[in-house]
């Protein structure tokens, strides 16, 4: 985001401030409730605490150094230079596009926060809270900031022409892969599966995620107008069709459509459309919604139980899988009449598909390796996992000394 001699537009600013609030709401309370409701009662508070602490930690680290590493002038396409530490030199009149730079940086902060929080879904019901706190900070610094810089901050993937409107690679693939790695290092829970303590809580979370995602994808236009409008519509379309798809497959495959299934499909569709949301039309959205949901269903219901890791709440199955599906299909369905910045295979540009695949692979590889190193270091020092007794009695008590309900 090079400084431009440009002016603040109040309408654009209004939309992006609100979008920031909407994306903030996605972590706290939405994701905290979504994950919390899916957790066993005895560990629900720990799940909630992992989410909200990620938000708090990222918020502080972001203004200290995260923003400048991600979105400042590039050091060789790899990382932002640290000249804006503690928002140094950014002031009330600094402009980014047509909005205040403060708004741009706060909007981006909420993306960083939810990406870290997403990973927690894989490790619930057994991870030490202190280890999680350390992980959050290290992962933000060494995984999120570089990847955000590469794709959005002027780094090499941006220059290569990778299309990621709102975070297919930066947010979802990144979180999904790291979730796998961290659960491999942690090991499986004593009691597996998803045994949701409170499905209405899951629904509150999922509902607020959907609404918040209007800000996530629509706000990524960084202005208020036709492109934001289109992003919101295709987001809603893909998500709704994905929810219907999951319910439909469940009905055929298992006999009954479930509430957890509807919520899972909804989120899969939201993830899938994320990279594509500023590039595709409603027809593309219907395809992306259906395919994201179907692939995530197959992974979560059929493949997952055969795998050697325990990704408790399916961070990879939902965010990783649908993130990959969405990133690749962006290279297929990107319609230049929606956004001239993106032309996909169907509109005569097979090369875009190729770029999408390459950029996804690069993020997968980087995220895998660096997360593994972080996990290894924490395991070797403070340790990753709670005592067996704590796990059986629940992490509410062992990590926080509280009961969720009295």
């Amino acid at each position, binding site marked *: 985001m090079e400084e431009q001699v440009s002016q603040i537009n109040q309408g654009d600013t209004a939309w992006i401030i609100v979008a920031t609030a909407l994306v903030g709401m996605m972590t706290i309370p939405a994701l905290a409730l979504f994950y919390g409701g899916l957790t066993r009662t005895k560990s629900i508070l720990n799940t909630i605490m992992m989410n909200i602490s990620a938000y708090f930690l990222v918020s502080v680290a972001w203004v200290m150094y995260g923003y400048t590493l991600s979105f400042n002038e590039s050091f060789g396409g790899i990382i932002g230079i640290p000249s804006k530490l503690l928002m140094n030199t950014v002031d009330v009149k600094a402009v980014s596009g047509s909005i205040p730079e403060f708004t741009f940086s706060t909007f981006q902060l909420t993306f960083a926060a939810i990406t870290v929080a997403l990973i927690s879904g894989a490790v619930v019901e057994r991870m030490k809270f202190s280890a999680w706190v350390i992980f959050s900070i290290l992962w933000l610094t060494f995984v999120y900031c570089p990847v955000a810089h590469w794709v959005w901050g002027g780094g090499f993937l941006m220059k290569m022409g990778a299309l990621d409107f709102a975070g297919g690679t930066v947010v979802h693939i990144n979180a999904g892969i790291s979730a796998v790695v961290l659960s491999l290092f942690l090991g499986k829970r004593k009691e597996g*599966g998803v045994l949701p303590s409170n499905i209405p809580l899951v629904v509150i979370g999922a509902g607020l995620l959907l609404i918040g995602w209007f800000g996530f994808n629509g706000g990524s236009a960084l202005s208020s107008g036709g492109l934001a409008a289109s992003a919101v519509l295709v987001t809603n379309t893909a998500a709704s069709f994905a929810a219907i798809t999951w319910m439909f497959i469940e009905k055929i495959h298992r006999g009954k459509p*479930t509430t*957890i*299934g509807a919520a899972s499909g909804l989120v899969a569709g939201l993830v899938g459309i994320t990279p594509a949301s500023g590039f595709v039309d409603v027809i593309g959205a219907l395809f992306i919604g259906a395919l994201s949901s179907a692939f995530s269903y197959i992974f*979560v219901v059929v493949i997952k139980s055969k795998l050697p890791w325990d990704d408790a709440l399916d961070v990879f199955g939902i965010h990783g899988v649908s993130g990959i599906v969405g990133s690749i299909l962006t290279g297929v369905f990107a319609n230049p009449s929606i956004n001239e910045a993106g032309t996909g295979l169907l509109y005569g540009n097979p090369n875009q598909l190729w770029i999408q695949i390459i950029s996804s692979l690069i993020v997968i590889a980087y995220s895998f390796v660096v997360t593994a190193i972080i996990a290894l270091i924490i395991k070797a020092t403070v340790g990753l996992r709670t005592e067996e007794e704590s796990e059986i009695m629940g992490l509410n008590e062992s990590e926080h000394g509280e009961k969720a309900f009295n």
Partner: protein
Amino acid sequence: MKKIEAIIKPFKLDEVKDALIAAGVTGMTVTEVRGFGRQRGHTELYRGAEYVVDFLPKIKVEVVVPDNMVEKVIKSIIDSAKTGKVGDGKIFIYPAERVIRIRTGEVDEDAI
């Protein structure tokens, strides 16, 4: 005196209560319990993972009565709790030695 303890299906509670009142019972205590028996549990699916639920929700009705009311009470329970399907539940009879009403200190038959 005897303690009569019946494990019944939850949705039958209202009928059993009414039948007991009709039989002359003036007090009873009910507890939510979970039962395992011939009536098999069921499986639930969450994100494709199956959870076998072995224990089914049941209601335990406890009523302490003088010996001469025992048969009548048993009959009322059977008549009101029966659906004829597996899982209707059971009635257990135990000896009770004393009853005391806390408020008045009355004992035994007077206290029931």
